[in-house]
C-alpha cells in the first residue's frame, strides 16, 4: 500500500515536474514527444534541462533520504542527518578552501574534495556529540555550531581570496538546475552503489539499532558496521551536495517521517524497507518543494529562489512538530556549567573582575588605536583635548562609535546568553541557536524591505518585533511539559533555520545584487555605525541591568530545576517570562545595532561560570565583560588584517568562538 502510494506520488510528481520550466514547453509537447511526433528542439529541452533537473531531484532525494536514515540508525538519534552533522557545510568549506589556497588535487575532483570535507565534518560532530544514543540536543547543538563555524570560515575565505574563489559564493544554497546530464552520469552511480551497499548491510543495521550488546552477542562487529555505514551515508550526502549544493532538511525530515509511520505499518522498521522508503520519501519531498515553488511564483521567478531555501522552510516546520513529540527527561540533561565550581571565594571573584576590567580597557584602547590607519596614544590625547589634526579627528570620530558598538553588543549578547542558558538550563543554548537572533535579523531585513528609507529607530522596532515573535513561537511550542530544556533548544534551532532561510529569500527576491546587505544581515558588522545607532543598545542595557540586579537570586534558583524555586515560593512561569523578556530585548537591540553576531552569547556566559562559579550576581558582570572583550577583539582584527577592506565582526567571533566551543563540547562529552 505504502510503497505503491509512494510510487504513484513519485511518478505523478515527475510528470508535473517535467512540464514546468522557462521554455514554452507544456504537457502537450511532452505527450507529442513521447508518442514520437515531437520536434528536435523539444527533445533538446527535455534531455538537457528538464530531465537532468528531474534526475537531480531523484538522485539528491534518494541520497539524502537514505543517508539520513542510516545516520539516524547508527547514532540511534532521530535528529541525525546530513544537515545536523555539518556534512553540507564541511563539503562547501573544503571546495572553497581548495580553490582559495590554489591546491590542485587532480585525482579527487570537486566531488572527492566535497566528500573529504563532509566526512571530516561528520567525524568531528559525531566524535564531539558521542555515539551514546539519546543525546539528541547535543548532536543538534554540536552539528549546528560546527556548521555555523564552517560557514563563517567559508565566507571569510571568500572575502579574503575573492579572486581565486570567484563563482563559489552562489554555491551556498541548493539548486537543482543542471547543465546537461554530465553531473548525474558521474554522481548517480556513486549514490546507487552506496545505496546497494547500505542495503547489503541492512540486516546488521537492524541489529545495531536494537543495541550494541545485543548485536555483539549475535556476532555483529558493531564498530565496523557503524564506520562503514557512516562513510557510505556521508558519501551519498556529499554526492548530493556536489550535484545540487546544500539542500536543507530533506535528509532529516524524510527518514523521520518514515519512522513515524513505522509505528502503524508493520515491517517498516527493518532497514531493508526503511532505507528505500526513506529514499523515496526524500524524492517526494524534494520534488514537491520544487514543484510547489514553480507553481507559486512561476518558472521565471523560481530562478531566483534556491530550492534548498524552500526545503529548509518546510523542514523547519516539520522539525518543530517533531520536537514537540520528542520524549524528554524531567531531570536536568546537562549540568548548568561544564566545569561547575559551586562557589569561589569573593577574593577570587574580585581578582577575576579586576583583571577582566583591565583587559577590557586594554582591548578597547587597542581597538581605538588599530585599524586601517594606526594611531598612537598621543593622537588620542590630542583628540580628547580637542587639538587633533583633521586626519586623527576623522579617524577617531568614525572609529570610536564602532568600538563602543562592539563593546555594547558584546556585553548585551553575553548577558542575554547567560539569561537564556539559565532559563533553558543548558550550557549550550544561546540566543543565536535558540532562534532569537534569527528572528531579530529577519525582522530588521523585513523592515528594510517594506519601508524604503527606513529610520534606524523603526528598524530597531522591526528587529524587536522579529525577536519577540521568534521567541514567542519557540516558547509557545516548547511550553508543553513546562519548557523542558531539550525541546526548547530543538524548536529554537528549527526557528533559527527558518528565519535564516526567510532572510535569504527576502534578500534574493527583493535585492539580489546587494551583497553588502546580505553580508551584514547574515554576518554582523560594525561598519558605518555612529553614536546614534548605539542609543537603543545603551538604553536597553541601562534598563535591564537594574532588573537583573534585583532578580539575581531568582535566576540562581531557576537554573537549578523546576521544583526548588517553587518550594521557595518563586512563581516559576512569571520569573522565567521576565528573564526571557530581558534576554529578547538585549538580543534585539544588539542585532539592530550590529547585525547578526554568533557564538558570543554561548561562550561568554560559559567561560564566566568556569571562572567565578554559578551565582548570577557574579556570572552576569563577568559574562558581560567577556562578551564585550570578544566582540571588540573580533572587530579590531576584522578592521585591521585586510585593511583597507574589512572582515565583518560576526565572522570573526565565529572563528574565535569555534575552538572554544569544540573544547567545551569535548569536555562535556564524558557526562
Amino acid at each position: 500500500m505504502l510503497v505503491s502510494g509512494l510510487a504513484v506520488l513519485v511518478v505523478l510528481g515527475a510528470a508535473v515536474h517535467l512540464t514546468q520550466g522557462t521554455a514554452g514547453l507544456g504537457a502537450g509537447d511532452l505527450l507529442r514527444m513521447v508518442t514520437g511526433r515531437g520536434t528536435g528542439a523539444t527533445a533538446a529541452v527535455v534531455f538537457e534541462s528538464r530531465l537532468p533537473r528531474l534526475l537531480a531531484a531523484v538522485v539528491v532525494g534518494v541520497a539524502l533520504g537514505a543517508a539520513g536514515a542510516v545516520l539516524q540508525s547508527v547514532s540511534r538519534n532521530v535528529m541525525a542527518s546530513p544537515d545536523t552533522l555539518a556534512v553540507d557545510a564541511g563539503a562547501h568549506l573544503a571546495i572553497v578552501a581548495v580553490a582559495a589556497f590554489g591546491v590542485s588535487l587532480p585525482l579527487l575532483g570537486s566531488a572527492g574534495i566535497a566528500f573529504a570535507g563532509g566526512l571530516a565534518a561528520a567525524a568531528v560532530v559525531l566524535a564531539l556529540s558521542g555515539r551514546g544514543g539519546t543525546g539528541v540536543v547535543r548532536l543538534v547543538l554540536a552539528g549546528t555550531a560546527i556548521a555555523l563555524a564552517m560557514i563563517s570560515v567559508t565566507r571569510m575565505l571568500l572575502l579574503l581570496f575573492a579572486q581565486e574563489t570567484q563563482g563559489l559564493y552562489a554555491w551556498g544554497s541548493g539548486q537543482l538546475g543542471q547543465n546537461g546530464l554530465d553531473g548525474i552520469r558521474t554522481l548517480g552511480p556513486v549514490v546507487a552503489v552506496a545505496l546497494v551497499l547500505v542495503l547489503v548491510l541492512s540486516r546488521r543495521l537492524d541489529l545495531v539499532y536494537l543495541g550494541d550488546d545485543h548485536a555483539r552477542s549475535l556476532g555483529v562487529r558493531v564498530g565496523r558496521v557503524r564506520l562503514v555505514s557512516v562513510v557510505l551515508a556521508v558519501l551519498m550526502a556529499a554526492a548530493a551536495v556536489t550535484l545540487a549544493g546544500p539542500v536543507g532538511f530533506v535528509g532529516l525530515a524524510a527518514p523521520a517521517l518514515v519512522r513515524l509511520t513505522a509505528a502503524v505499518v508493520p515491517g517498516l522498521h527493518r532497514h531493508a524497507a526503511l532505507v528505500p522508503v526513506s529514499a523515496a520519501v526524500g524524492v517526494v519531498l524534494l520534488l514537491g518543494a520544487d514543484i510547489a515553488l514553480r507553481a507559486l511564483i512561476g518558472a521565471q521567478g523560481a530562478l531566483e529562489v534556491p530550492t534548498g531555501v524552500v526545503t529548509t522552510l518546510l523542514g523547519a516546520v516539520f522539525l518543530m512538530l517533531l520536537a514537540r513529540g520528542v520524549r524528554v527527561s524531567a531531570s536536568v540533561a546537562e549540568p548548568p556549567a561544564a566545569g561547575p565550581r559551586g562557589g569561589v571565594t569573593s577574593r577570587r571573584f574580585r581578582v577575576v573582575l579586576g583583571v577582566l576590567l583591565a583587559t577590557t580597557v586594554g582591548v578597547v584602547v587597542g581597538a581605538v588605536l588599530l585599524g586601517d590607519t594606526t594611531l598612537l596614544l598621543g593622537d588620542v590625547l590630542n583628540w580628547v583635548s580637542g587639538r587633533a589634526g583633521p586626519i586623527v579627528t576623522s579617524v577617531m570620530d568614525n572609529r570610536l562609535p564602532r568600538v563602543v558598538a562592539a563593546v555594547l553588543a558584546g556585553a548585551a549578547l553575553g548577558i542575554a546568553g547567560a539569561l537564556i542558558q539559565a532559563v533553558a538550563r543548558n550550557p549550550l543554548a544561546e540566543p543565536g541557536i535558540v532562534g532569537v537572533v534569527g528572528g531579530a535579523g529577519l525582522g530588521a531585513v523585513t523592515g528594510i524591505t517594506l519601508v524604503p528609507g527606513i529610520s534606524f529607530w523603526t528598524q530597531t522596532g522591526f528587529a524587536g518585533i522579529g525577536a519577540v515573535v521568534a521567541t514567542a513561537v519557540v516558547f509557545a511550542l516548547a511550553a508543553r511539559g513546562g519548557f523542558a530544556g531539550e525541546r526548547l533548544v530543538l524548536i529554537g534551532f528549527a526557528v533559527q533555520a527558518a528565519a535564516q532561510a526567510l532572510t535569504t529569500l527576502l534578500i534574493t527576491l527583493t535585492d539580489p545584487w546587494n551583497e553588502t546587505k546580505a553580508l551584514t544581515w547574515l554576518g554582523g558588522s560594525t561598519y558605518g555605525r555612529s553614536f546614534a545607532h548605539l542609543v537603543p543598545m545603551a538604553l536597553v542595557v541601562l534598563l535591564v541591568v537594574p532588573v537583573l540586579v534585583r532578580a539575581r537570586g531568582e535566576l540562581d534558583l531557576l537554573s537549578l530545576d523546576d521544583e526548588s524555586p517553587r518550594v521557595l515560593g518563586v512563581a516559576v512561569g512569571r520569573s522565567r517570562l521576565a528573564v526571557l523578556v530581558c534576554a529578547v530585548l538585549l538580543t534585539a537591540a544588539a542585532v539592530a545595532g550590529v547585525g547578526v553576531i554568533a557564538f558570543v552569547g554561548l561562550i561568554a556566559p560559559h567561560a564566566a561560570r568556569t571562572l567565578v562559579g554559578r551565582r548570577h550576581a557574579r556570572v552576569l558582570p563577568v559574562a558581560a565583560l567577556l562578551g564585550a572583550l570578544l566582540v571588540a577583539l573580533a572587530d579590531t582584527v576584522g578592521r585591521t588584517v585586510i585593511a583597507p577592506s574589512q572582515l565583518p565582526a560576526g565572522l570573526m567571533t565565529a572563528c574565535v568562538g569555534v575552538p572554544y566551543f569544540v573544547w567545551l563540547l569535548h569536555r562535556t562529552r564524558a557526562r
Partner: protein
Amino acid sequence: MRLTRALIGLSAAAALFAAGCGTTEDTGNQAAAGGGDPITVVDSRGKAVTLPDGPAKRVAATEWNGVENLVSLGVMPVGVSDIEGYGTWVSAAPLDGTPKDLGTRGEPSIDTLGALDLDLVVVTDSLTEGALEQIEARVPVIVLAGGDAKDPIGAMFTNLDIIAKATGTEDRAAQLRTEFDQKLTEGKSAVDAAGATGEKVAFSDAYVSSGTISIRPFTTGSLVSAVFERLGLQNAWTMEGDPVYGLAQADVEGLTQLPDVRFWYESNGSEGDPYADELAANAIWTNLPFVRSGKVHRFPDKLWMFGGPKSMMQYVDAAVAALQK
C-alpha cells in the same frame, strides 16, 4: 612563579604602552585652503551639497561609475574602491596608478577616506546608511543613483553633470555629450549600412555556480540596451528587469523563448566564458536558432555595463563590429 608571570605581563603591558605613545600627526588646524567661490550641487538625493572652496580637486569615488566619470572628465581621483576590480572590469577610463585603494565598494574604508584630505567624495545610493553620514561629517558627499531603468541614458548623464559641476569640468562634460551623440549617430548609420536596423538583439552575461549556468539578461531598462536602441536595434528579451539596473534572470532552457536574434554577451577573461566553455555540448544551446545561424558574439573584455559615456561609446563600437563580422 605567579610573581614572575605577573612581572612579565606588567612589563609587556608597559612596553606596549610606551610603544603606543607619541603621535602620528601634529596638532593644530589645517591651513585654510585657498580656492574659488563656493559651488552648490544638487545630487540624486535632491540634497544641495556645497563645496566651500570652489571646484573639487581631490576627489574619491566608491563606485566604478563615479570613478569612470571622474577620469573621463579629466579629474584623476585620489581614492578608488577595489582598484584591482576596476582594472579588471573597466577599460574605458584607466587610472594612472596614483589613486589609493579604499577597500571594497560596499564598505569603503572611512579611515582612508579621512586621511586623503579630500574636497569631495562621490558615492552611490547602495552605500550602507550610517557610513554616508560619517563621511559627510568631514567632507562634502555627492550621492549618485546606481541607475534608473525608466531612463538609463538620462540617468547616466545626470550623474556625469552632477560630477562635472562639482569639479568645474562642465565644458568637458558638454564635450563628452557631443562625442557620445556623434558616436551614436555614426553607429546608427553603420547599423543602417549593415542593413541591421530594427533587428533584435539579446545582450547578457552569465556565470557558473555548482555546474549550473545562470544568465543575466539586460532588459529594455538597462543602460546597454538603451544604447543599442538608439542605434536602431531592438531588445529581444521579454522579461521584466529590476527597477535600477534593468537586469533579470534566466536559465539555459529559457533561451528557447528567443527567436533567431543576435545573441551578444560580455564575459570577462578572468572568469572564463560560460557560454563557450560550459554549453558547447549542451543540445539546447546547439539547437537554438541563433547558435545554428552563428549569430552569437562575445564582446571584447573589460567593457563596463554600468559605466558612463566612455564605456557606452565602447559598446557602440563593439556593436558595430559585431554586425560587420
